[in-house]
């Protein structure tokens, strides 16, 4: 295919050519970054929480009337018994928070009693001996808490556990070369012995600012006797909805001095996950919709503009056909013309995409755009351009040679 005649012709359509190229460039810049954002956000969404999410129910219980620690202890013990006896409940424990909840406590954990030089941050879960079974956490090394090891903590009491269980990620971070079980670490000024290591267990937070340590979780053997209590309930398989319907009434029947919010007091773990990843999912949806519509509009724009050019050049096409050009020649003329414009567009667009990404990195702490996205975007836009131009080009190739003899 001769390229020079095409370039010569394009000179007569400078504005149109520039506009298509510009549209392709801008579309590429935005679509690349949008796809990258989608991929990042979906990557967040698909990260496992570490807990066995099916058949898990969470009840947020606020104690009414400011009971003291002893009163909370007895009400909590009675609640746990009530819940355990509820048909369909397999296991239950009381805690301060759970993975993806969005709220919780962070401690520094390290090898020194001086808390100003801790190794890293860790999420703190106050649990009892039923937590591992209820959450479906896998014990990789060591042992679970024993019932007699579960202490009590009230607000502002000293948190100085003798035994703790940590996640594998945290264990590896603290003791890269050896097993962590049996080792001492410092959460407080007193050493705590790691008695067990569990597999994955996410922190309560999904924010990117805490992503670095989002699997550094520590379980402490305490009943937390404060203003509110979270009950984590594992139901028998298939009983989740049934228990969810009855649990609030059951607890109120046992004791009315509590508040379980009608709005979100009782949630399944699926609800918790959906809420935690709300903005990630939302961004992915929005970016997906914008990309899709933008590609459609750019494609349709190319169809429209090329159609006009074909209509404008019917006579020239007829002349070329009369002088011996085959239908194929005409078809490939328009495809090549579009490819040339497309290539110019994607070269500019590639640069714009990287520029936009650099700016987003600077402004929004976004990660560096992987080159694969630019390559994929270039491929998508070139294929889209060729696809869009195909129908008008086919129509052009059908122009009969006799057209050359007609006036407009």
């Amino acid at each position, binding site marked *: 295919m001769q390229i020079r005649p095409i370039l010569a012709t394009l000179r007569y359509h400078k504005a149109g050519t520039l506009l298509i190229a510009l*549209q392709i460039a801008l579309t590429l810049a935005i679509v690349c970054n949008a796809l990258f954002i989608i991929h990042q956000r979906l990557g967040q969404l698909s990260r496992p929480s570490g807990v066995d999410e099916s058949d898990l129910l969470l009840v947020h219980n606020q104690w009414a009337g400011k009971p003291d620690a002893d009163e909370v202890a007895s009400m909590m013990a009675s609640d746990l018994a009530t819940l355990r006896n509820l048909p369909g409940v397999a296991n239950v424990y009381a805690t301060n928070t759970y993975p993806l909840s969005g709220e919780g406590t962070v401690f520094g954990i390290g090898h020194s009693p001086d808390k100003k030089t801790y190794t890293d941050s860790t999420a703190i879960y106050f649990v009892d001996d039923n937590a591992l079974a209820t959450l479906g956490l896998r014990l990789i090394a060591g042992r679970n808490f024993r019932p007699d090891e579960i202490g009590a903590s009230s607000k502002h009491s000293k948190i100085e556990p003798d035994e703790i269980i940590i996640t594998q990620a945290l264990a590896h971070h603290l003791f890269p070369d050896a097993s962590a079980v049996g080792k001492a670490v410092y959460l407080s*000024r007193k050493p705590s012995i790691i008695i067990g290591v569990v597999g994955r267990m996410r922190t309560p937070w999904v924010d990117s600012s805490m992503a670095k340590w989002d699997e550094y979780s520590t379980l402490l053997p305490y009943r937390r006797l404060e203003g509110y209590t979270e009950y984590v309930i594992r139901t028998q398989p298939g009983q989740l909805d049934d228990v969810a319907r009855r649990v609030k009434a059951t607890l109120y029947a046992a004791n009315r001095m509590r508040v379980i*919010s009608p709005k979100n007091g009782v949630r399944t773990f699926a609800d918790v996950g959906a809420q935690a990843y709300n903005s990630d999912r939302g961004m992915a949806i929005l970016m997906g919709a914008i990309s899709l519509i*933008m590609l459609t*509009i*750019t494609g349709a724009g190319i169809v429209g503009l090329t159609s006009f050019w074909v209509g404008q050049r019917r006579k020239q096409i007829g002349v070329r056909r009369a002088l011996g050009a085959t239908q194929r020649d005409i078809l490939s003329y328009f495809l090549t013309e579009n490819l040339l414009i497309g290539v110019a567009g994607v070269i500019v667009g590639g640069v714009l995409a990287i520029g936009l990404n650099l700016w987003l990195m600077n402004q929004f702490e976004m990660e560096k755009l992987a080159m694969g996205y630019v390559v994929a975007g270039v491929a998508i836009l070139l294929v889209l351009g060729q696809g869009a131009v195909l129908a008008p080009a086919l129509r052009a190739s059908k122009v009969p040679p006799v057209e050359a003899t007609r006036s407009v």
Partner: protein
Amino acid sequence: MFAYYLRLGWRSLRRNPLLTALMVFAIGVGVAASATTFAVFHAASGNPLPDKSAQLFVPQIDIWGPASRSAGRDLPDALSYPDAMALMRDHKAARQTAIYPMASTAIPQDPTREPFAVNGYAAYADFFPMFEAPFLYGNGWNASQDEAHAGVVVISRALNQQLFGGANSVGRTIRLDDHDYRVVGVLDEWNPRPRFYDVNNSDGFSDPPDFFVPFTRAIDLQTETNGNSNCYGSAGRDAGWKGWIQSDCVWVSFWAELPNRAAVTAYHDYLMAYASEQQRVGRFHWAPFVQLHDLMQWLDYEKVVPPETRISMLLSLGFLLVCLVNTVGLLLAKFMRRAAEIGVRRALGASRREIWLQYLAEALMIGVAGGVVGLVLTGVGMLGIGLVFDPDIARLARMSPSVIGLTLLTAVVTTLAAALYPTWRAARVQPAWQLKAN
């Protein structure tokens, strides 16, 4: 004449219905995406107290030293209880208040009714005039009631509705947790967004508070904060409430009203003097370091506008730009294809200006149609916005008259801007050349 141009334009648009639909749809989608995301961004980044935001300041004090900031941290965004009390005692601002959020349960007097959860704040008397809180009944408490640690409460209009059926409840009693409080005031609707005085604890867009009680009283009753508390390196503090309030844990918000530049400078100097004094008595082992942000700077510092709202607005604007480039190209092709027609009209005496106006009328119709489509799509966008943004933020965006006006105006103005070059080209068609070519 213009009506005639509109008629011509209508006829021309109908000749290529698919192309017209494409242009209208592209503009509609571009404008709708921009309008929806802008509405969210605008709602999230607004000034919650425009007439006073430049006079309200948040002090920060470096109480943990440079080592605590080595990991890229900022100064703590709240004060410790001892520091907040020192600032209250010194009373160097025109008005000032320490604040912390509390979660309580309201216990209805009717024993057959169940307790329910209420959220509120512990604050000082200055809180209400300082933040221009409007009262429906009664008033805020006064400074002497702060000093007396009085058991009084200001409740929201919503809580007054729930507890007293909306009647004037001043003088009546409500029970929060294990204590009674006498109602001194009922607020009118008051929900500044973002809730600037609590952005260090919440996203600033959650449900408005139900009540306010005197800070001094809340401390007497050992009421816990429902917000963040941060205890860098102070794990060795004493156990119990006393150890807690004497500690260097930060959990108390503090706001000062400083009416002019001189007051701001004086307050900054005061804070520096306070920090220097702490260094002198051996509490701080580092050079004094303080910061003073005004309200809007504070919202920025606390990153109140979620990055998602900004990114999605910027990408939507980019999207609109692509739609406009698309429109420029299509209009250009469409107009130039009618060069012959233009040539005839020019030869028959139409001036360039008239040609220009004729094609501008056609573009105007596309712009208006695009605006209407955009309006419908913005409406759809507002319904679907809960899918995309955090519900607390999403509910801020409404189909208000200003959003409607902005959508239509953007569609028309951008389309006309896009039509400038194509219409200019159309007006420059040489009649002789066109007539000869045919």
